[in-house]
């Protein structure tokens, strides 16, 4: 094994340790539960109840919201907590590269997102929502959660605050508009032209489109666009997030 692949392996092991730490510490934090689990549930109920739509029609929206909110609820709080509780300096003094530290954060966001997304999935199966393509459904969930997990790390990059609630508020300011423009409640095909253009900037759009495809077999964008776009956006978010954090992380040390 050459030294550079050894380097990546060693750093990846550290990412897993970071992930384990995050799971133990942050999964049970109040804001994570509220914004990651309860909020999408209530949003969905508010949208679903009293309307004459079937669960089958509403399912892509339900899954989209759950995936989006759960995957973006752990990530943004980690760094502010670390600076608030003064564990950050100790952490970045160890021989860990910043990218592998943030990869650990992404992974813990990812695990949380996948776990919580199982709830609507299982619910869907029990209540008899029919899926045409389960493979696509699960693949989509994996990619979507990954993409939004990377997004969640970006959300905490700026401003370099040490107050988790501030970042949760800012995060919500970004998340809600994205929900509304992403075809979660209305299929893309029913949107006017400007709506489609607007929605194309949101990564959630592609995820919901994928989910519709796995339910109905019909998607607005072809799959060869939906899938790579999610992968591409995930990588892009991660790279941008790490480079912004790199600049701002020292401002977090008091």
């Amino acid at each position, binding site marked *: 094994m050459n030294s550079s692949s050894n380097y990546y392996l060693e750093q990846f092991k550290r990412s897993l340790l970071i992930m384990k730490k995050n799971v133990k*510490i942050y999964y049970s934090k109040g804001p994570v539960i509220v914004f990651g689990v309860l909020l999408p549930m209530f949003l969905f109920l508010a949208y679903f109840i009293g309307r004459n739509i079937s669960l089958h029609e509403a399912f892509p929206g339900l899954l989209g919201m759950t995936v989006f909110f759960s995957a973006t609820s752990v990530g943004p709080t980690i760094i502010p907590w670390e600076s608030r509780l003064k564990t950050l300096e100790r*952490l970045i003094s160890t*021989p860990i590269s910043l990218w592998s530290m943030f990869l650990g954060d992404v992974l813990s966001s990812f695990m949380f997102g996948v776990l919580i997304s199982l709830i609507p999935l299982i619910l869907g199966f029990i209540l008899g929502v029919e899926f045409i393509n389960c493979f696509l459904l699960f693949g989509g969930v994996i990619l979507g959660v990954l993409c939004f997990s990377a997004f969640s790390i970006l959300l905490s990059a700026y401003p370099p605050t040490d107050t988790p609630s501030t970042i949760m508020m800012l995060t919500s300011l970004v998340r809600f508009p994205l929900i509304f423009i992403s075809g979660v409640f209305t299929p893309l095909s029913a949107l006017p032209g400007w709506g489609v253009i607007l929605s194309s900037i949101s990564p959630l759009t592609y995820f919901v489109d994928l989910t519709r495809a796995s339910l109905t077999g019909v998607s607005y964008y072809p799959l060869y666009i939906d899938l790579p776009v999610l992968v591409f956006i995930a990588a892009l978010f991660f790279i941008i997030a790490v480079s912004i954090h790199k600049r701002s992380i020292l401002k977090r040390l008091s």
Partner: protein
Amino acid sequence: MRNAIEVVNVSKFFGKIKAVDNISFTVQEGEIFGFLGPNGAGKTTTMRMLTGLIKPDTGQIRIFGLDIIRSPLKAKQLMGILPEMSNAYIDLSAWDNLMLVGGLYGVPRRVREERGERLLKQFKLFDRRNQLVKGFSKGMKQRLLVCMALIHDPILLLLDEPTSGLDVESTILIRNILRELNEKGVTVFITTHNMEEAGKLCGRVAIVNHGRILVTDTVENVKNKTERFKILEVVFDRVADFTELASLAVNGEFNVFDERVRLVVEDVDAALNRVVDYARNNSIRIISLNTLTPSLEDAFIKLTGS
């Protein structure tokens, strides 16, 4: 003997504030080196540059020959670090904290478990290992942080005010373990504003103020440098007008407490003769006479002018 730390012409600005001003020093392997200065002197900033957290604006830093900017991970691997304002994860147990840090330094699981157990026993935390750090006292937290700095068997320890705010017991425990480690060859770099601590622990010290190094020398030499001044304390048998003696004191350091006179002098011999003459001329008897050497603390206060 290798150089454990080499700092060459290092400066650091924060905006217009010059936190560290062109400092250079070398710490040799096996030393306990004290970095002494009052609040805001630039100790923590220097420490963070040594540990690779912040980049110096100018100059070079090498850790056992490794440039901290070019090989940060390799250099960090050699160092055990205790940052000034840092905490263990309060939502994890002492054991989990220790294992996490061990893992981040790449210590294999079996080794870090073995070492973790030994360290926690040594620092009297083993019985509480499975308790969340949330419930720990300040002294226990600090001892755990020292364990975390030692879990990868570093050859260089960098400690930023490791005993500030601790009780005597924890302080002595930490100090003794640092001495033990040093005897085994571990180099120690420690910042403090506590002279007593530096005097007890360090071989050499650098005294810093306003980002500049004022002296770098052995503790003994720093004391001796200010030793050219002696404190002369004379007790007479009665109160009198002692103002005549004030001219003997350097820098006007002259104090009278009833029949006791205290003055800082440069030439002890000349001063003594004048005091004796004064007593004879005024027919006052000398009850006692003492010369004191300034402590490291006095030296420090003199050098930093605070």
